[in-house]
């Protein structure tokens, strides 16, 4: 999380070589998104239907990923859990990006008291271990996809604000900004048309990484019972529910864990690739 703030400089990508890892990561994510989006349409069974005669079964032809302790199909639950994870990830990163980016842009461009005010507020927010703030927010607002998204989005704001501010500071006295100012460009134009596009590489490569962090945070909340309400499936909730059967049926815990692991791994893999693309320090090594 910490090394991201260094990505101030922007460089052209040297060459685009499609690595196998990136292809696999993209394929996994596309598959997941398609399944999550089309789940009910393409006939994936109801994730709440349990067959109590067939509990904790290993993967079979009927249950591709086995069943849980209530005989519910793990594959169906993983797919419906993906809906939750992906919605929360995209939504919370969107909130962090929009809110944090705006605050950082304003603080960095205007400096002086707006900057001190905004960065002071961000420091206070950073003082909370993120998950604690999220726990407090979700437990006060009630567990639902929207509230979990909001809570995780709020804890992302300071980091995005810091990145946007640091980059704006180095951009605001660059020639193209001075040129726009002396040509009499209006303030919104300078901020949105001149500075914002140059912030995007740093913000977006950070956003990719934060998608993975958001999925992990949602899972942690789900593990504590603070994500969606049962029986609606979430990956963290699935793992928490089967934790007691670890000795007899480890697959009931580790299969949903593996789905989550592969998803976050794929996102991190793409994140590394984007970071390499934009990070001049890594390229010069």
């Amino acid at each position: 999380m910490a090394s991201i703030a260094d990505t101030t400089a922007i460089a052209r990508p040297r060459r685009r070589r499609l690595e196998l890892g990136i292809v696999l990561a993209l394929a996994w994510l596309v598959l997941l998104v398609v399944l999550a989006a089309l789940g009910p349409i393409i006939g994936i069974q109801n994730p709440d239907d349990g067959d109590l005669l067939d509990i904790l079964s290993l993967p079979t032809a009927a249950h591709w990923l086995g069943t849980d302790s209530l005989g519910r199909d793990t594959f169906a639950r993983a797919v419906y859990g993906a809906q939750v994870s992906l919605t929360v990830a995209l939504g919370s990163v969107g909130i962090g990006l929009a809110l944090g980016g705006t605050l950082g842009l304003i603080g960095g461009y205007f400096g002086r008291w707006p900057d001190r005010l905004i960065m002071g507020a961000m420091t206070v927010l950073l003082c909370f271990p993120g998950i604690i703030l999220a726990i407090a927010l979700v437990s006060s607002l009630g567990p639902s996809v929207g509230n979990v998204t909001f809570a995780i989005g709020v804890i992302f704001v300071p980091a995005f604000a810091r990145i946007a501010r640091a980059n704006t500071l180095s951009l605001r006295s660059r020639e193209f900004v001075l040129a726009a100012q002396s040509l009499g460009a209006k303030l919104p134009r300078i901020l949105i048309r001149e500075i914002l596009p140059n912030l995007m590489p740093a913000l977006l490569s950070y956003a990719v990484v934060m998608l993975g962090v958001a999925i992990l945070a949602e899972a942690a909340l789900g593990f504590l019972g603070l994500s969606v309400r049962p029986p609606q499936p979430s990956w963290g909730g699935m793992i928490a529910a089967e934790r007691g059967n670890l000795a007899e049926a480890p697959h009931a815990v580790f299969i949903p864990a593996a789905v989550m692991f592969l998803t976050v791994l794929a996102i991190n893999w793409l994140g590394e690739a984007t970071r390499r693309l934009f990070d001049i320090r890594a390229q010069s090594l």
Partner: protein
Amino acid sequence: MIGSQAARRLRNQLLTLVAIVFAATALTFAVTEILPGDAAVAILGDTATEAEIKSLRTELGLDRPLIVRYADWLSNALTGDLGRSYRTREHISTMIAQRLPVTIELIIITQIIALGLAVPAGIIAAYRNRSGVDHALGGVSIGLLSTPAFVIGIGLIYTLSVALGWFPASGYVRPSDGVLGNLQSMFLPALTLALAEFPVYMRLLRADMIATLQQDFILVARAKGLGVRDILVGHALRPSSLSLVTVIGINLGRLVGGAVIIETLFAIPGIGQMLVNAVYQHDHFAIQGVVLVVATGFVLINLAVDMAYALLDPRVRHGVDS
């Protein structure tokens, strides 16, 4: 040597400390305020009548305005009185005093394990940059970064506890009941948190170390004929550890957050578990107390980190801009 500049910086930081702790506790007070069913409802349960809830709210002082209650809490907190738990009527300060050492022990063991793994790994990965070892360590760290701490914990429970039976799966042994048993009960949770921190530390140290190894004084050391170990550990490690030290400080907040989940998973009675229970039970003063301790600790650590800079980098010590 502490010049006037250093003294001024210290004073500014102490002021920031006070401001941050103040703001953090005010924010928590406001956040816990929007909890729907308040403490009175939580204590009496769903079956309580409106009148019962109302009288208990008056008894607990919940009917007074938010600002008054915060001012009240703050003035008490300044004298060391953090109030009592709505649930158990226990003093919050006593609860924290019992539980904080457990969390601190967990975090110290975690940091020892994490640094014990990450420093050698970071040095090797930097020295053998882009070799097989480097790529393997990079793969391990991206894998660990992609796994939530509680899954790492469950994985460790399954392998080291359920399958091999080396460590207890959960539970906590007080040091007074045997230091060895205590360390044994702390090992799995600490290893879990350490494995989650490992990639962050390793990657930072590796990146800084690679930069350091390209500097002239390393070339000089090499030209003097010093051994690889002397150069890496004796010359390169200290100037490469600036980011690492910063992040160790920042990470303490993250670690407390991780401790919340891991203490719940392993049934360790630290302040993380106290916080989760307090949130479940709408125990406002307990939440407030934990946040106060965590925020204060976080800011103090950052102050210490800032001072540690001076020891690591002579330019900071002498107030020279690099």
